[in-house]
C-alpha cells in the first residue's frame, strides 16, 4: 500500500530519528527487562540447582538419633516424596572445622566437579578448592567415635546444594565456624542411630524454591511433621527406655551372678584358710608327739644303754673275778694260753712216749687235761672279754647312732616347728588378704550396685528425645541467596523505573515531533481523501517497526546479557557460577504490549489533534507558539543585567516548557544514573582504604598455640627477632549469634593493654572523635550496633558457642565498615567472661607480612595467622565485582544520555528551523547560530546536571543501602571527582551532540526554510 510505502520512505528519510527511537526503546526495554529478570533468573537458577541435586526440604535431627522406624514413619507421611537417613559429625581436619557426611543417594546429592564417587571405605569426597585428587585426608582420632577409619584418599571434588554460599554457618569444633565439608560412604559410620534424616517434600520438583507454591508445600509438610514429632519422640523414648532398662536389669543380673560367684570363691578361700589352720594345728600335735616320742625314745634308749652297760659291767666284773682266779690280767691271758698250749703240746709229746694207761701217762694226761681246761677257761674268758668289749663297742655304736638319730629327730622337729610357724604367719597373711579382698569385693559390688541404681535412676529420669526440624530457611546459604536476589530486585526496581520514565518521555517526544513536522503531509493525505484510519495506520506502522526492532534488541539483551553481567557480582560468593537466563514470555509480552500500546496511543492522540483541524489549515504550518514574558523579566535588575542573547535564551527556555521539562528529566535522569554509578564505585572503593588504611591498621593477628596467662619471653624474643614493630597481647574469639533470624559473626577482641590499641585499631566515634576503652564496657562497631539495635549506654547480650550468655555494656560505637567487632580490655573481658588468658597477638610488621608470618609459624609457637591483607583481598573481590553493576549503569546511562541529548537537540532544531533560517538570513555566523541554540541546551544541561546531582546522591544512597550486606557497611558517599566525571561525561556528550547538530544547523537551507508553504 502506498501509505505504508510512505512509512518506509519516512524511515529512510530520517534514519537518525528512526534509530534513536529504536535505540531508546531497546535501551529502555533491555534495562527494564534485564534488571527485573535478574532476580527471578537467579532464583530459577538456584531452584534448578536444588532440584538437580535434590536439596532436602526438611532435615530432622534428634537428640538421641533416628532409627529405621523413624524413617519408615516419615515415609508414611502424605506430603513426603523421599526420606533418606544419613550420618554426619564434625571434626577438625588440618585445623579446619569440617563436617563429614555420609553420601546420600536421593537427597542432598553432591555435585561432583572432578574425580569420581568413593568406592570403598578409604575414599572421600572433599569440597572443591580444598584438597586435590589423590591427597590423603587424616581425621583426628576423636572421629573414631563415629567412623571406622581415620585416613582417606581424596577421589572426588564436589559442591553441595547445602553449601552454596561462602559462609557455611557455625560449627561445634575448631574456630566455631564451619570451614568445609566432606562425604564418605555410609558404611564407614559406626553409629547405631542415624544422626539426621533428609526429607523431600511431595511436588518438590514442580514448585520453585523461595516462591509461595514452594512455601505452601513446605507448610503442609511442616504441619505433618509437627504432628508426627511427639509420636516419634515418645516411640524413640520408649524404645530407648526399654533398651536401657533391659541393660540395667542385665547388669543387675550380671552383678548378682558375679556377687554370688565371688562370695563362693571367698567361701572356698576361707575354707581353705580354715583347713590350713587345722593342718597347722595337726602339725603342732604331730610336732609335739614327735617331740615326746623322741624324748621317750631317748629315755628308753638311755635306760637300755644303762642296763646294757651295767650288764656289761657285771659281766666284766664277773669276768674280772674269774680272771682274778687265774691271777692273770687280760693282757697276760693270751700268753698264758700260749704257755699252757705250749705245755700241753710238750706234755703231749711226752705222753706220746708214754704208754697209755701208764700213770705217768695218766698223770700226764691229767696234767694235759688240766692244762687244756685252763687254756680253755682262759680262752673262754678271753672270749667273754671279747664279747663284753664287743658289747661295749656295740653299745657305744648304739649310743652314737642314737645320738645321731636323736639329733636328726630333733632337727626334723625343729624344721617342722619352723614350718609350722611360717605356715601360721602365712595363714595370718592369708587371712588378712582375705579380709582385704573381701572388703574390696564388697565395696566393688556395692559400687556396682550403686552404679546400677544410678543407671536405673538415670534411665527413669531419661529425658525424652527431642526432634529438631530444620527446613531450607535454616541454611544460611539458602536464605542469603534469596536476600541477594531480592537485593538485585530492589536495585532493579529503582533503576529501570528511572530509566523507563526517561526513555518513554523521549519516545513520546520524538513521535509527537515527527507528527508535528509532518502535519502538512497529513493534511495532504486527508485532503486527498485518505481515511483517518489509514493515516493513523501508516504512522502506527512506522512506530511499530521501530518498537519491534527496539524491543527485539532490548529484550534479547535484557534477558540474556544483563542478568549475566549483574550476576557476576554475586557469583564470587556463591558456588553457582552459570546463571540460567530465561526469556520471560509473559513479561516480554506485557512489555511489548505496553510499548506498542503507548506508542500507538501517543501516535493516535497526536494525530487525533491534527484531525480536528481542517485539512486546509493542516497544510499550513502550525502557528508558532506565542511569545510570552517570563517571570524573570519582572525582576528588573536581573533582566537588565542579562545580555540580549541571554534574554533571548531565557525567553526561549520558557517558551517550550514541554521540551524543557523533557530535557531536564532526560539530563537529570542520566546525570543521576551516572552519578549513582560513580557513587557506587566511590562508596565501595574507598571502603577498603578507610577500613584498612585508617581504622584497622594492624598487619596481622597470630593465634598462640597455647593460651598464655602472661607474656611469654619465648614469644617476645621470637617477635623481637622478626621485624615486628609493634605487638599486643589479646584474646580474640569469634562469636556467632542470631539477629533477625540471621547469623552474625562477631569478632571479640580483648586487649591486654588498652593504651596501645591506637597502634592497631583507631577507634573513633561517628563524629570522628577518638574513643578509648575503659574497664566497664565495650566498643561496638557501628553496623553491629545498628543490627543489634543498641546505642551507647545500652546493654546487650551475646551467646558463645557453648551457649553461655554474656551481658555487655556499650561504652562507645566506633566507625567501621567491614565485619563486626567488639573491642574491650582484658579487665572487662575477665569481669564478664571469667578469667581468661591471651590466645593471640596483634602485630604490626616491617617488610613483607607473609614472609614474617612464615617465620613466625615455623617456630611452632603459633597455631594460625590472619593477615589484614587477606581480609582486605577477600572483601575487595566481592567489592570489585560490584563494579559490573557500575559499568552497566554507567554504560546504559551514557547511551541514554547520548540518545536523549541528540534527540532533544534535533527536535529543538526541527521545531525551530524557520527561526534558525531567519537568523542565518540576518547574517548570523554559523557559530552564532549554533550558540543561539546551544546556549539553551547548555543551560538546560547544566541545570539538569545540578538537579541530577541531587537525585544521584539520593539514588546512590538508596542503592547502596539496598546493596549492603550484613558484613559490610557502605559509605554512601560520592566523591567530588565523581561529580566531575558525571559532569564531564554529560558535558562532553552535550558538546559531541552539539558538534553533530552544528553540522545539521550548517546545512539548514535558508531559502527552503523560509518558504512559507512546504
Amino acid at each position, binding site marked *: 500500500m502506498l501509505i505504508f510505502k510512505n512509512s518506509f520512505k519516512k524511515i529512510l528519510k530520517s534514519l537518525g530519528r528512526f534509530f534513536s527511537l529504536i535505540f531508546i526503546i531497546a535501551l529502555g526495554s533491555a534495562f527494564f527487562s534485564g534488571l527485573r529478570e535478574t532476580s527471578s533468573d537467579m532464583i530459577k537458577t538456584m531452584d534448578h540447582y536444588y532440584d538437580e541435586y535434590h536439596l532436602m526440604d526438611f532435615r530432622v535431627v534428634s537428640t538421641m538419633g533416628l532409627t529405621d522406624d523413624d524413617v519408615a514413619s516419615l515415609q508414611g507421611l502424605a506430603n513426603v516424596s523421599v526420606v533418606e537417613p544419613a550420618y554426619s559429625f564434625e571434626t577438625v581436619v588440618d585445623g579446619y572445622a569440617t563436617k563429614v557426611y555420609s553420601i546420600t543417594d536421593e537427597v542432598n546429592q553432591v555435585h561432583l566437579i572432578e574425580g569420581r564417587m568413593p568406592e570403598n571405605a578409604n575414599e572421600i569426597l572433599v569440597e572443591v578448592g580444598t584438597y586435590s585428587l589423590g591427597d590423603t585426608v587424616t581425621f583426628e582420632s576423636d572421629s573414631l567415635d563415629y567412623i571406622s577409619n581415620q585416613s582417606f584418599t581424596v577421589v572426588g571434588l564436589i559442591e553441595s546444594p547445602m553449601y552454596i554460599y561462602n559462609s557455611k554457618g557455625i560449627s561445634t569444633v575448631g574456630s566455631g565456624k564451619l570451614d568445609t565439608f566432606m562425604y564418605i560412604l555410609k558404611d564407614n559410620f559406626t553409629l547405631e542411630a542415624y544422626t539426621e534424616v533428609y526429607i523431600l517434600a511431595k511436588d518438590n520438583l514442580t514448585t520453585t524454591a523461595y516462591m509461595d507454591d514452594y512455601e505452601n508445600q513446605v507448610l503442609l509438610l511442616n504441619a505433618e511433621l509437627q504432628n508426627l514429632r511427639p509420636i516419634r519422640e515418645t516411640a524413640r523414648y520408649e524404645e530407648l527406655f526399654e533398651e536401657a532398662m533391659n541393660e540395667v536389669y542385665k547388669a543387675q543380673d550380671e552383678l548378682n551372678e558375679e556377687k554370688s560367684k565371688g562370695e563362693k570363691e571367698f567361701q572356698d578361700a576361707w575354707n581353705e584358710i580354715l583347713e590350713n589352720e587345722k593342718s597347722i594345728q595337726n602339725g603342732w600335735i604331730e610336732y609335739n608327739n614327735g617331740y615326746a616320742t623322741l624324748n621317750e625314745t631317748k629315755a628308753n634308749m638311755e635306760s637300755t644303754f644303762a642296763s646294757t652297760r651295767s650288764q656289761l659291767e657285771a659281766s666284766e666284773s664277773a669276768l674280772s673275778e674269774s680272771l682274778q682266779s687265774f691271777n692273770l690280767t687280760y693282757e697276760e691271758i693270751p700268753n698264758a694260753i700260749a704257755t699252757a698250749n705250749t705245755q700241753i703240746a710238750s706234755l703231749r709229746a711226752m705222753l706220746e712216749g708214754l704208754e697209755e694207761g701208764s700213770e705217768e701217762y695218766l698223770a700226764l694226761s691229767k696234767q694235759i687235761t688240766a692244762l687244756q681246761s685252763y687254756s680253755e677257761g682262759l680262752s673262754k674268758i678271753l672270749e667273754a672279754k671279747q664279747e663284753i668289749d664287743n658289747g661295749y663297742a656295740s653299745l657305744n655304736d648304739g649310743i652314737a647312732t642314737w645320738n645321731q638319730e636323736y639329733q636328726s629327730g630333733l632337727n626334723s622337729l625343729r624344721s617342722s616347728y619352723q614350718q609350722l610357724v611360717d605356715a601360721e604367719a602365712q595363714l595370718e597373711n592369708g587371712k588378712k588378704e582375705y579380709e582385704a579382698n573381701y572388703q574390696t569385693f564388697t565395696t566393688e559390688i556395692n559400687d556396682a550396685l550403686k552404679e546400677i541404681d544410678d543407671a536405673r535412676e538415670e534411665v527413669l529420669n531419661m529425658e525424652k528425645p527431642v526432634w529438631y526440624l530444620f527446613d531450607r530457611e535454616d541454611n544460611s546459604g539458602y536464605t542469603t541467596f534469596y536476600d541477594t536476589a531480592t537485593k538485585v530486585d530492589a536495585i532493579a526496581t529503582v533503576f529501570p523505573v528511572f530509566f523507563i520514565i526517561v526513555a518513554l518521555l523521549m519516545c513520546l517526544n520524538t513521535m509527537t515531533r515527527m507528527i508535528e513536522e509532518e502535519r502538512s503531509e497529513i493534511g495532504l493525505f486527508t485532503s486527498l481523501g485518505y481515511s483517518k484510519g489509514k493515516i493513523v495506520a501508516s504512522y502506527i506502522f512506522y512506530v511499530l517497526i521501530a518498537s519491534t526492532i527496539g524491543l527485539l534488541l532490548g529484550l534479547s539483551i535484557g534477558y540474556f546479557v544483563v542478568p549475566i553481567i549483574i550476576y557476576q557480582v554475586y557469583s564470587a560468593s556463591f558456588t553457582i557460577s552459570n546463571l540460567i537466563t530465561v526469556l520471560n514470555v509473559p513479561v516480554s509480552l506485557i512489555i511489548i504490549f505496553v510499548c506498542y500500546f503507548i506508542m500507538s496511543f501517543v501516535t493516535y492522540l497526536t494525530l487525533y489533534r491534527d484531525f480536528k483541524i481542517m485539512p486546509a489549515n493542516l497544510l499550513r504550518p502550525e502557528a508558532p507558539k506565542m511569545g510570552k514574558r517570563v517571570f524573570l523579566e519582572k525582576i528588573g535588575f536581573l533582566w537588565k543585567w542579562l545580555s540580549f542573547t541571554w534574554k533571548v535564551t531565557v525567553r526561549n527556555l520558557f517558551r517550550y516548557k514541554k521540551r524543557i521539562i523533557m530535557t531536564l528529566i532526560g539530563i537529570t535522569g542520566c546525570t543521576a544514573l551516572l552519578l549513582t554509578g560513580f557513587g557506587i564505585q566511590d562508596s565501595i572503593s574507598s571502603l577498603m582504604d578507610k577500613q584498612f588504611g585508617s581504622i584497622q591498621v594492624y598487619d596481622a593477628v597470630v593465634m598462640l598455640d597455647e593460651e598464655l596467662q602472661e607474656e611469654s619471653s619465648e614469644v617476645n624474643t621470637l617477635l623481637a627477632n622478626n621485624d615486628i614493630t609493634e605487638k599486643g597481647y589479646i584474646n580474640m574469639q569469634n562469636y556467632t549469634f542470631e539477629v533477625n533470624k540471621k547469623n552474625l559473626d562477631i569478632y571479640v577482641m580483648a586487649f591486654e593493654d588498652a593504651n596501645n590499641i591506637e597502634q592497631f585499631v583507631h577507634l573513633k566515634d561517628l563524629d570522628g572523635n577518638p574513643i578509648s576503652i575503659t574497664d566497664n564496657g565495650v566498643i561496638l562497631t557501628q553496623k553491629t550496633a545498628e543490627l543489634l539495635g543498641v546505642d551507647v549506654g545500652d546493654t546487650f547480650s551475646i551467646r558463645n558457642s557453648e551457649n553461655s550468655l554474656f551481658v555487655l555494656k556499650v561504652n562507645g560505637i566506633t566507625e567501621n565498615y567491614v565485619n563486626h567487632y567488639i573491642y574491650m580490655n582484658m579487665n572487662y573481658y575477665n569481669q564478664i567472661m571469667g578469667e581468661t588468658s591471651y590466645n593471640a597477638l596483634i602485630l604490626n610488621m616491617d617488610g613483607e607480612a607473609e614472609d614474617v608470618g612464615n617465620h613466625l609459624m615455623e617456630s611452632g609457637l603459633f597455631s594460625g595467622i590472619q593477615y589484614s591483607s587477606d581480609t582486605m583481598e577477600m572483601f575487595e573481590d566481592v567489592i570489585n565485582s560490584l563494579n559490573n553493576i557500575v559499568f552497566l549503569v554507567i554504560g546504559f546511562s551514557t547511551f541514554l544520555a547520548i540518545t536523549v541529548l541528540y534527540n532533544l537537540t534535533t527536535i529543538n532544531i526541527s521545531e525551530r528551523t524557520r527561526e534558525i533560517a531567519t537568523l542565518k538570513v540576518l547574517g548570523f555566523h554559523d557559530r552564532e547560530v549554533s550558540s543561539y541554540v546551544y546556549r539553551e541546551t547548555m543551560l538546560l544541561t547544566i541545570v539538569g546536571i545540578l538537579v541530577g546531582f541531587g537525585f544521584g546522591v539520593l539514588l546512590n544512597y538508596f542503592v547502596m543501602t539496598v546493596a549492603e550486606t550484613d558484613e559490610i557497611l557502605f559509605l554512601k558517599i560520592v566523591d567530588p571527582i565523581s561529580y566531575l566525571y558525571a559532569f564531564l561525561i554529560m558535558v562532553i556528550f552535550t558538546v559531541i551532540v552539539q558538534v553533530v547538530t552544528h553540522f545539521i544547523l550548517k546545512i539548514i537551507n535558508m531559502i527552503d526554510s523560509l518558504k*512559507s508553504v512546504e
Partner: protein
Amino acid sequence: MAFIEVKKLSKVYKMGEVTIKAVENISFQIEEGELVVVLGPSGAGKTTVLNILGGMDTPTSGSVIVDGKNIAKFKKKELTNYRRYDIGFVFQFYNLVGNLTALENVSLASQICKHPKDSMEVLRQVGLKDRSNHFPAQLSGGEQQRVSIARALAKNPKLLLCDEPTGALDSKTGRMVLELLQDTCHKEHMTTIIITHNAVISEIADKVIKIKNGQVSDIISQKNPKLVKDIDW
C-alpha cells in the same frame, strides 16, 4: 559605475538528472538610492535573483557586483558578513522570532551590526513605538511586516531586499507597508528592491525589471514614479 551591476547571471539547479534553469543570462544595473521593483509571474525566477542579490544563494555563473564587490565570488563566510552588514531583508511572511517582542526582534538584527540604528527609533519610524513591547502574535499582519521592515532598517543596510512584502497583506495594510518602503528609500537614500508579481506596485518604482521565464524581458526606468497613495489596486 552603478551601485549594483548584475552581468549574465545564471542559476541552474540540478535535481538529480533534471536540470532546471531558474534564471539565465540576466543582466541589469541598479543605482544607489533607487527603488527597484522586480516584476514577474510566479516561478519566473525573480526570487532566485533576490536570493542571489541577498547573498542567500550563489549564482552558477555571471557576476553580481554590489558596491564594487563581486559577491558571486564570495565564500560562505563573506556571504554571511555581506548579509550581516550590507543587506536588510523583508519577507512575505515576516519571519519574526515569535518569542521576541517587536523591539527585541529589531534588536536581534541590530546587535550584530557595526553601525546599527537605534531600535526604538526605527520602530518609531515605522510607527510602532507604542507596540514595541508586543510579541509578533499580538500584532496584526501589517504591524508584523512593519516590524520586519524595522528589523531590516535597523541594520542600516546598503541594500533593502523585499520579497513580496505585501503578499500576505490586505490592500490597506499593504499600502502602508509600501509607503513605508518608498519613504525610507527616498528619505534615507536607501537602495530598495521589491519583488512582486503585482504590476500595480511597479508603479512606485524608479526602475522596473521585468522577468519572465528566468530572463529579463524588460527594464523600464520611470522618471516620475507614483507615490503609493496614488496607486490603486
